[in-house]
């Protein structure tokens, strides 16, 4: 079966003050119909760039898709005409943003924003679109949807706004839903509600979800498969349960260790020492080597390639050599 969305060997570069940097390097991901792929990593790992690439929203310039392909149902989006991309956006691929406070147009009523999205892709008049907007608000669990449709975004809470975003994103029953940290800006209790809603919507609409997150908890709750990204590369990939239970890459292990467990009586929160290196300072070796307890000379000199050694594909010399 060909996957619904197939990202193959994608390379995205940006022109910066430090010269050209590679934000994504040989990224290959695929997403089957109806499944959820989690993409995890810290800030600056290329998760959001991946999301924007799929949407065809990489700011160009300074950004540039320097190689590889993104195929939706076999159609390559990288070389597609802007008009074609625009007609796919919102209808076939839709996106939910991280910050519901700023991702809704503040001067348009919520209902009108959803109605606009509907009218862009469906041949309906504005009265019908408004009714559909109210139905969608009802569908995403907003109480008194007809009244909320007449509210401005600033009159709603963060969770409600994210529901409005979701209603807008699913208004045209997209095949792929890109969710870029959809719950990061929300309260924990609201996070769970939003995840439930996304799961429900997914069953309803049959959309595949590309879930961008830094939260391993979100992965375990939502994702069927997971790809761990570090410094613009995929370093580990596999079924979500498999990766969570048998994390191999030291970075993945670090991320999992960072989840604070209730009842663990440590005084300190665990962390991965150091930060993601600036992209323009990446050398020849493994990008994680400077923060890795298992790094040796080979790690500093040669980039590991994503290969299946034990459970699932992982890009790590230490795993390959059996040192961890």
């Amino acid at each position, binding site marked *: 079966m060909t996957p619904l969305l197939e990202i193959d060997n994608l390379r995205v570069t940006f022109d910066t003050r430090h010269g050209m940097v590679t934000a994504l390097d040989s990224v290959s991901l695929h997403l089957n119909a109806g499944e959820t792929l989690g993409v995890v990593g810290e800030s600056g790992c290329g998760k959001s760039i991946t999301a924007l690439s799929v949407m065809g929203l990489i700011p160009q310039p300074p950004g540039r898709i320097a190689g590889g392909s993104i195929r939706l149902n076999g159609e390559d989006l990288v070389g597609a005409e802007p008009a074609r991309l625009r007609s796919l956006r919102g209808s076939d691929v839709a996106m939910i*943003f991280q910050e519901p406070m700023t991702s809704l147009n503040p001067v348009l009523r919520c209902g009108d924003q959803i109605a606009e999205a509907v009218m862009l892709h469906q041949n309906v008049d504005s009265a019908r679109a408004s009714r559909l907007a109210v139905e969608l608000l009802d569908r995403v669990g907003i109480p008194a949807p007809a009244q909320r449709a*007449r509210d401005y975004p600033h009159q709603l809470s963060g969770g409600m706004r994210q529901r409005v975003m979701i209603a807008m994103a699913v208004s045209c029953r997209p095949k792929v839903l890109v969710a870029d940290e959809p719950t990061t800006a929300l309260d924990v209790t609201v996070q769970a509600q939003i995840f439930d809603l996304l799961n429900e919507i997914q069953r309803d609409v049959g959309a595949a979800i590309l879930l961008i997150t830094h939260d391993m908890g979100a992965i375990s709750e939502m994702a069927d498969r997971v790809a761990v990204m570090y410094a613009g590369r995929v370093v580990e990939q596999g079924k979500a349960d498999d990766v969570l239970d048998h994390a191999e890459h030291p970075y993945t292990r670090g991320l999992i260790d960072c989840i604070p467990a209730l009842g663990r009586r440590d005084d300190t929160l665990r962390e991965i020492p150091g930060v993601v290196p600036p992209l323009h300072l990446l050398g020849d070796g493994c990008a994680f080597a400077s923060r890795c307890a298992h790094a040796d000379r080979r790690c500093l000199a040669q980039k590991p390639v994503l290969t299946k050694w034990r459970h699932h594909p992982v890009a790590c010399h230490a795993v390959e050599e059996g040192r961890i």
Partner: protein
Amino acid sequence: MKQPTAETAPAAAGDPATAQRVESPAREAWRMFSRNVPALLGVFLLALVLLATLYGKLFYGGDPFEIVWAPYEPPLTTPSVPLGTDYLGRDIVAGLLTGGAPTLTVGASAALITMVIGISLGSLAGYYGGWVDNLLMRITEFFQVLPALLFAMVLVTLFSPSLWTIAIAIGVVSWPQTARLTRAEFLRIKELEYVTAARAIGARNRRIIWKVILPNAAPPLIVSATLTIGVAVLFEAGLSFLGLGDPNVMSWGLMIGANRDYMLDAWWPVTFPGLAIFVTVFAVSLIGDGLNDALNPKLRGR
């Protein structure tokens, strides 16, 4: 802001409990505006000026160019010329009532021209950036470094003074500021997430410019537009004062210009049209501020 269809939203229409909540944006803005005392004062003053300009002649006839009395008759001395006469013996009240229309027409049309040119060029430059921005901003700077009054004078003298040439001249020299303001707002707003979100639902550039960015850039532009009306009124008065107005049309500026040489001997022929201009510009500014508060939804309910 337009609100095409929400009145037809099914639940809202039937449920009486929601009837109060359901209010069009225009009504909401009006509610804010009507609580704003300075803005209402502005409306009152401008209404007064407009009524006097439109209907004053019905109650107070008389040709403003006609010599009706001795020159330099001071105000409040002769019932037939309540505010006195100018250096030729023309009735000042007749001049005030007739002179408003050209001044306001020129002011409003000049502001309209300014906003149309300024917003079009500024939004294109700010939105598209790159070479479009460079080209448009160099053109803007070219117009900006020209001394506005001198340039307007040149335009008016080249194309014989009439209300239209004056309005166009004022528009042509005033748009660069509006263009720069619009560009700055576009540069700021186009980076915001809701613009990316609009792109993510498949909106076209045109739609993003007009329906997403421009409404969000509106508050400073509305204030700027009203201030531009004020500036244009002053500009028209200035040109007339320098003798470059349309000499066949009695305007407030022309009244001041014609009487300026005798200002020290007779204060009233320049003071009353001056006050009329002041009140008009003041009223327009108050309304501009009030609109700014009313149209910014984030300030609502405070």
